[in-house]
């Protein structure tokens, strides 16, 4: 079991949990958190290099490092793992954000319990990305959801009780649909008389889900994951949840957890049920199109920094699902790039907001101004994040959105055109709210005299932000590298739905 490198993505967080339980003081806790996340980054970088070497060596399987260990034999439930380029990108993203998040919560109160829940959450996230067995995937998915309740409830701010409960119930509501969908898939996973299976690769190989059942199970799974992907009208947990969550949790949640939704949508819903996806994509395309535009407009009128970013996340995550539903190689590749880009950029945003809030004790942009003079480092970082968000070339947002729209325009019919153009228009609105915040918050007159005494970033805050900025720039500067990593999976041979289109 332990020969497979993937299992260490779960083992390391578990070891971290054990280590944290033994910690006596905050220094040890920080040491464990940083050491663990560095180990995770190291592991994912090694995996990336090794994976590319294997692909270069001619490996053509849809997934590599595939392995499975029997768990519940009568139900054929395995602990099955395997990764392709997309999962590796997601693992890398998650480990970077866990690393940055550890630094961002350097001075949290009651650090032991906080980090225990945070690492439990990331165990779920890593487990989800390496799983290819629907049962274990779902289990890790739920493991990632529940710590949010306590993290927001205990360490959050503002209307935290309400937000924590709303977030948990809505996400769990999504997973109720998901569970039904997954069990339904299991019972139709093999042809009559064959061995039923939870393994994604086997289900695709069997290709046995009847078309009628697909059109019932596809909406179930898509909505189930879509709730976490902040799909309209199930996005309402996201603004409240993000606004109340502590910094590192916002980072991890917007940066990684929301990606679980998008990832699940294509890995489970679309990958396993191509026919239904092809037929029903338009319904969800409408919904995600609304997400994109509506999120951007909502962000324009918010005055709380975190709400602005939460709505902006709704818009950007809507873009991910929107692109996935375009069902062609280019747009889907763009969707994954957007996941990476949005993950890093939003994490950066939330980290910065947390740092600013920690100094000014307000998140209302009307009460702040001129921060560029007071805390130049944070302000510059904020501008960079903003530029990435509105799609400045050279940073990650541009690459992702460009790819998405090029892919979307490959559809020549009226319906797709209209929605593509509407989504493109959302970019302009993004520019409006980003520039509005930058202008109001960073430039302009200082609103509060007390702000003049504030200090700039500390070294741990710099570590956190610089890490994220480097990654954002890396995607922006070397898009081709990521493109090749990702689009191997989105070929018609592997992803059947692309051939249908």
């Amino acid at each position, binding site marked *: 079991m332990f020969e497979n490198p993937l299992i260490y993505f779960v083992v390391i967080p578990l070891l971290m949990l054990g280590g944290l339980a033994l910690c006596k003081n905050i220094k040890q806790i920080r040491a464990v958190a940083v050491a663990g996340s560095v180990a995770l980054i190291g592991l994912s970088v090694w995996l990336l290099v090794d994976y590319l070497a294997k692909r270069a060596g001619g490996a053509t399987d849809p997934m590599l490092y595939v392995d499975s260990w029997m*768990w*519940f*034999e*009568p*139900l054929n*439930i395995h602990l099955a793992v395997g990764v392709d380029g997309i999962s590796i990108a997601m693992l890398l993203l998650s480990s970077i954000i866990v690393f940055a998040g550890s630094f961002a919560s350097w001075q949290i109160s009651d650090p032991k319990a906080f980090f225990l829940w945070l690492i439990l959450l990331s165990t779920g996230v890593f487990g989800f990305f390496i799983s290819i067995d629907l*049962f274990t995937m779902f*289990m*890790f998915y*739920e*493991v990632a959801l*529940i710590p949010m*309740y*306590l993290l927001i*409830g*205990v360490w959050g701010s503002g209307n*935290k*009780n309400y937000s*924590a*409960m709303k977030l*948990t*119930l809505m996400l*769990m*509501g999504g997973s*109720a*649909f998901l*569970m*039904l969908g997954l*069990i*339904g898939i*299991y*019972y139709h996973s093999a042809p009559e008389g064959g061995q039923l299976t939870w393994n994604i690769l086997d289900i695709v190989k069997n290709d046995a889900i009847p078309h009628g059942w697909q059109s019932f199970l596809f909406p179930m799974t898509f909505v189930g994951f879509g709730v976490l992907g902040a799909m309209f009208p199930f996005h309402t947990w996201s603004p409240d949840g993000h606004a109340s969550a502590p910094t590192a949790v916002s980072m991890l949640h917007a940066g990684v957890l929301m990606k679980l939704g998008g990832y699940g949508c294509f890995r489970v819903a679309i990958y396993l049920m191509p026919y239904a996806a092809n037929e029903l994509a338009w319904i969800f395309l409408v919904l995600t199109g609304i997400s994109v535009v509506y999120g951007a407009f909502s962000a324009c009128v918010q005055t709380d920094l975190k709400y602005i970013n939460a709505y902006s996340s709704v818009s950007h995550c809507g873009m991910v699902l929107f692109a996935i539903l375009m069902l062609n190689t280019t747009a889907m590749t763009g969707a994954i790039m957007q996941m990476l880009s949005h993950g890093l950029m939003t994490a950066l945003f939330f980290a910065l907001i947390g740092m600013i809030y920690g100094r000014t004790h307000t998140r209302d942009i009307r009460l702040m101004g001129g921060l560029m003079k007071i805390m130049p480092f944070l302000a510059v970082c904020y501008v960079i994040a903003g530029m990435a968000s509105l799609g400045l070339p050279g940073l990650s947002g541009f690459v992702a959105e460009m790819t998405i729209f090029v892919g979307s325009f490959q559809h020549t019919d009226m319906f797709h055109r209209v929605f593509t153009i509407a989504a493109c228009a959302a970019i302009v609105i993004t520019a409006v709210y980003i520039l509005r915040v930058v202008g109001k918050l960073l430039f302009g007159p200082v609103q509060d005299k007390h702000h003049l005494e504030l200090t700039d970033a500390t070294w741990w805050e710099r570590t956190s932000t610089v890490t994220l900025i480097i990654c954002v720039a890396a995607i922006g500067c070397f898009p081709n590298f990521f493109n090749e990593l990702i689009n191997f999976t989105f070929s018609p041979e592997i992803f059947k739905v692309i051939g249908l289109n």
Partner: protein
Amino acid sequence: MDYSQFLAMKQEIGLLILFLIVFFYDAFAPRKVQKYLPGLTAILMTVLTVVGCVWMFTGESFTSAFNGMYETSTVIDAIKNILNIGVIIVLIQSVKWANGELMIMRRGEFYMLLLVTLFGMYLMISARHFLLFVIGLESASLPLAAMVALDKNRYESHEAAVKYILTACFSSAVFMMGLSFIYGLTGSLYFEDIYMSLAGQGLSVMMVLAMAFVLAGVGFKLSLVPFHLWTADVYQGAPTSVTSYLSVISKGATAFALLCILVQAFGCVYSQVWEWMLYALIILTITIGNLFAIRQRNMKRFLAFSSVSQAGYIMLGIIACNTMGAAAMMYYIFVYIFSNLAAFGVIGAIENATGRVSMDEYSGLSKSNPRLAFTMMLAMFSLAGIPPFAGFFSKFFIFTSAINQGSIAIYVLVLIALINTIISLYYYLLVVKAMYISDKPAVIDRFNSTPGERLGMIITVAGIILLGLASPVYNWLLETTDMSPILNMFMLQ
């Protein structure tokens, strides 16, 4: 008569011996050593369970005695052992209470009554003739009323006992009314004969009525909605140890007995009659139990409604009418025993130390008594079905087995049940919120729980964490039910 038939009843006989030991110890042991009775009972019960497990793994896979009136098999041994494990935990948790001021004169009564009810439940599970079943049902119900009334200084305890005994009598009456109809229709009270006879005749009004009465009679005991009205008051009024016994052991045993009745006596009218009755009962039970639980502030009433809705989930294992469902149901009961007893263990510990049972008074518990709060949180997560705790696995498997039946109606039912898990998550999280998130100052001071309570908590927490992750438990249950000849004969798949 062949007296060796009695050997088939070895579990019952073992329990009777245990009962006699407790009886004589209580009656004749000198007063100085009387206080060891609770510990002694727990140890003897453990011995019985270990021996029972050995029988289960080594004994015959199927035995029938007294012309088929009594039946035992590996599966039945398994459910009896599961109940035994629950009883052991209850016994360990109640040591402090049983040695308290109140119980000093009536300690023996508690243990004797408890063992008698357990004996009754054994009979209910093993009976394949309705006469034997009724004997089991009565001896499992009536002593419980006395146990509910044990707390003689509290008004609620008396009220609860009267309520319980009246409902128990009424439900038995209803049940036997149904039996008389069935006897009229089929001319026998043997499950096997009833099955044969019903298979030969068409659907009749009498049949439907009889079925409704039988389901209602057992439904009272299981507290299925709309027969649940006694539950909250009795749970609140009874001493906590009795409540925990009532909520898990009594419920688990009756659920399994209901499975046996429905499958082995009425299996042939599954789709015509009882599938739809059970369908409606499940929806009502889960939904109403959940909705009422939201408003409860007293922890015992809260868990009463939570256990009403849990009974609905347990029934999901029956409605599928397949061996997978039977296994999932047993597993669910097993996990439910651990989760619910963990919750009741904490409630009991707090009640014994401070006398507080209101959810509002639990605020700040994570600061004053972190271990208790942690145990309670795990119990709540497990009851709500959050991974990686055992409750998640049991819920997942019971849904999977229900869907195995395959009809669209079952998908709808499971969806309703799943949506209800969200409602249940809400109120389980309310407890977590009170303990961990609420800013109110702690009402309950720091206190040390007794060794018994602590041991109970360790066992239940270990169960909550390990039962799910360790797959052999469920695998073994499913394989055993799959191989069980009797269950297989009557099941759909």
